[in-house]
């Protein structure tokens, strides 16, 4: 003991744990990045292969990995078999009835002469394949297949018996419509692709499946219509998705961030939808839809700013209604983006715009407020964002409490305490409602984020500040591409025939052209006269 320690008590640091970097070789980590592209193979020796599969699947370590050993009768002799499956991923009924029962009992009732008969006679499941690639076997086992290893066979058999718990097809949460279909994607990839195929009953609908994530091996479906979508677009989507070098990707939201051009831009560069009809419509217009297993949203690519302002309902509304609603939505978006900034600019720089009587009323309302307008509006905006964020996470029973507190704080108490003026509450509320009226959730968030920038610009230089911000914003947005398509197409750059159809929706029978900026293989969606009954000869 040192003399100093005698006088000064230093408590022993109990938090001695430090997370060090582990220098474990990658091959010992239990995965091989190349496992889906070949990798190790089974040797053909039952004992050795069983030991390998035991180790690869982690039979001893993993509680949910099950092994069932039994014998099978082939050519008058008993042959050892091992069935591997993951509890919870397979449908036990179908495994018992259509895999184990035929193998254990059927092989004794029916005369099995060769190994070939196992697949041809005994296994009645629809999806059965034989392989000796270890990577494929482990992937299949993790995706709801039963892996069957048979002594003397030389290969393993992968039998599809998927059957995990999942949500059924339910109502869309974020894209509700009044007159359209009301089914939404769920977390099951195959179910989701089927929902689309049910709408597009055509052999040209292609579903290219790849897996993403070195460890997670998440199945991803890249869907397109062969005779419509540009080959270049499909190849680019496949190239971007297959080039992702990450351990895991669980959802389309994560995938989106891996494949978008500009990650720091507030503008979403793909459209996400939970509606099969919307995805099908996008496919038919020459776009590509990407569905990630485990995610109830499909990514539509490419997309534009104008499409992000469209709602799923638009296609089910008559022309006059849809145009009016689109205009209102555009105004709502602009309000949500600019209104607080404009308010600050008017109060600070352009008071001559406001009629004298109204100005007097605003001034008298602000008379007791101790803060400058900028501080006042920032307080309100932050309070609103906090309430909105809390509202997303708050349990349903507490929702009412939150609304009461929010309304009281935002509405009454803040005004009574002279923290903010009543006019400002109206401005902030209109802006908030505007962001809710924006059909694309991420466009709404984008407006919320940029609103703060415009508030500061309005406070610094009035309308000039706001215009400078709009100019920079427009430069950044127009120079952004969604899978090679400018986000402001067909307005900037102007494309042939695209502008009128984008800004004002024509009658459904006049929407004969596909959007030219996605370079579709087929330019027209309808005949020149799509309403044949108008022709008197018919």
């Amino acid at each position: 003991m040192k003399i100093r320690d005698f006088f000064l008590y230093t408590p022993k640091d109990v938090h001695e744990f430090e997370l060090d970097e582990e220098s474990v070789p990658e091959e010992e980590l239990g995965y091989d990045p190349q496992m889906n592209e070949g990798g190790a193979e089974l040797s053909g020796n039952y004992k050795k292969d069983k030991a390998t599969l035991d180790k690869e699947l982690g039979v001893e370590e993993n509680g949910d990995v099950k092994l069932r050993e039994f014998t099978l009768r082939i050519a008058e002799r008993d042959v050892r078999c091992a069935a591997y499956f993951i509890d919870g991923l397979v449908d036990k009924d179908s495994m018992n009835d259509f895999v184990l029962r035929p193998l254990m009992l059927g092989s004794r009732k029916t005369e099995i002469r060769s190994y070939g008969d196992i697949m041809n006679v005994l296994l009645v499941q629809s999806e059965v394949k034989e392989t000796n690639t270890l990577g494929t076997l482990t992937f299949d086992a993790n995706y709801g297949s039963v892996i069957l290893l048979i002594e003397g066979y030389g290969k393993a058999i992968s039998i599809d018996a998927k059957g995990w718990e999942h949500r059924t097809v339910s109502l869309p949460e974020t894209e509700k419509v009044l007159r359209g279909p009301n089914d939404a994607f769920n977390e099951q990839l195959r179910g989701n692709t089927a929902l689309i195929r049910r709408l597009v009953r055509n052999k040209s609908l292609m579903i290219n499946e790849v897996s993403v994530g070195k460890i997670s091996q998440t199945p991803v479906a890249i869907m397109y219509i062969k005779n419509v979508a540009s080959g270049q677009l499909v190849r680019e989507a496949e190239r971007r998705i297959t080039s992702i070098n990450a351990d895991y990707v669980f959802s389309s939201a994560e995938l989106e961030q891996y494949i978008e051009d500009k990650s720091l831009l507030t503008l979403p560069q793909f459209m996400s939808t939970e509606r099969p009809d919307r995805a099908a419509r996008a496919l038919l217009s020459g776009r590509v839809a990407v569905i990630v297993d485990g995610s109830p949203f499909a990514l539509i690519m490419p997309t534009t700013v104008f499409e992000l302002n469209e709602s799923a309902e638009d296609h089910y509304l008559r022309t006059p209604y849809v145009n009016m609603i689109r205009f209102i939505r555009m105004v709502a978006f602009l309000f949500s983006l600019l209104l607080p900034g404009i308010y600050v600019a008017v109060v600070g720089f352009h008071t001559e715009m406001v009629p004298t009587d109204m100005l007097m009323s605003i001034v008298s309302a602000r008379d007791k407020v101790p803060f400058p307008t900028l501080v006042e509006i920032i307080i309100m905006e932050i309070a609103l964002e906090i309430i909105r964020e809390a509202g997303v996470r708050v349990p349903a029973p507490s929702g009412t409490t939150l609304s009461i507190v929010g309304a009281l704080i935002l509405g009454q108490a803040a005004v009574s305490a002279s923290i903010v003026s009543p006019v400002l509450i109206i401005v902030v509320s209109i802006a908030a409602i505007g962001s809710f009226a924006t059909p694309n959730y991420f466009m709404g968030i984008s407006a919320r984020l940029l609103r703060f920038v415009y508030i500061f610009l309005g406070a610094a230089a009035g309308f000039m500040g706001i215009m400078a911000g709009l100019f920079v914003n427009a430069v950044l947005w127009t120079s952004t591409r969604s899978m090679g398509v400018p986000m402001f197409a067909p307005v900037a750059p102007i494309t042939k025939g695209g502008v009128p159809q984008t800004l004002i929706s024509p009658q459904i029978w006049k929407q004969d052209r596909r959007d030219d900026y996605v370079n579709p293989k087929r330019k027209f969606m309808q005949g020149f006269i799509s309403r044949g009954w108008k022709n008197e000869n018919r």
Partner: protein
Amino acid sequence: MKIDRRLGVISMTLVFVNLSLAKYLLVLPSFIVQEAGNSAWIVQILKGAAALGLFAVLAALYKPYTGLGLGEVNRRALGKFFGGVLNVALSAVIILRGAFLFRTLSEALRTLEAASASQEFMALFILVPVAICALKGFNSNADISSIIIPFTLLSVGAMAAILIPHFRFANITPILGEGPVEIVTTAVGKFGGFFEMIFLFIFSRYVSGYKTFKRSGLFGIGAIALITAVFMLMYCATVPYPASKKFFFPLYQLSRLIMAGAFIQHLEPLVVFIWAGIVLCSLTTIVLGTGELLASAAGTKDISGFVPILVAIIFFAGELPQSEIVAYDAYRTVLNTGHYVYIIALLFILLMARGRKIEKA
């Protein structure tokens, strides 16, 4: 449609329109009214007709070099050294116009909204966006023009519609204003109204072919002549002569006449959106055009290195006039005189290029 980054007729026309429209919406109408009285709108039509003829001649001479860009044609026609010197000289003329345009806008802004703010502070809100857009390149500038020009035209059109009750036929009589001689002299002598056609030659390498180039020029000049003639007519019909000579910012004065009722008393602050949008767009094109010429002089195609320098030059050159009055006079002088030099130079270069049979594009 194939999204080809070579511009089509509409995009290129809009770039040209944005360049010309900026000065017309700021100060130029008052200069023209001062010269030609209430027949300023006729002057615009005559100027447009003359400009169309001149452009047709220049475009025909330029036909073999459409894909090169003016800077490169200069270099090939005059040799690296003299071509480079000419490019630098032309850049100086253009950037000077840009500097005065910048100064005029910042003075207008100070008048309109922030008299207490310094000139340098307002410059920040003009030059930073210009630099960002210029760094994104010419295609981005063309895309922005596609948004800003329709917005500007719609706004001015709406303003014209609202002002219809203020129109007085007596204000534009006598129709020939200061007289036919004055009209023709102003139209021919003040040809600078279409100085911007030079940018069509500078950016010709971005255009998809000679036909597009020619059509862009013809449509652009025609559109500007028409728009500005209508604007002049609106101005002259609303503000009686000689009061119309006195106003520096005609658009602003027109907007002051609009009483929007109980909710918005005056609309004139909204003019800032029109001015700022069109001038930011125009200044970006000026920076990019100058950059193109300087890049040709330096034998490179990448102009991004020139952008910060050019923006700084615009700022410092714009600050040179001591007061706003001096700035307006300087701008007026630049607008009225520079164009002769360049048009003669352009004709000379193209004839020389034809004579020397330089390599075609």
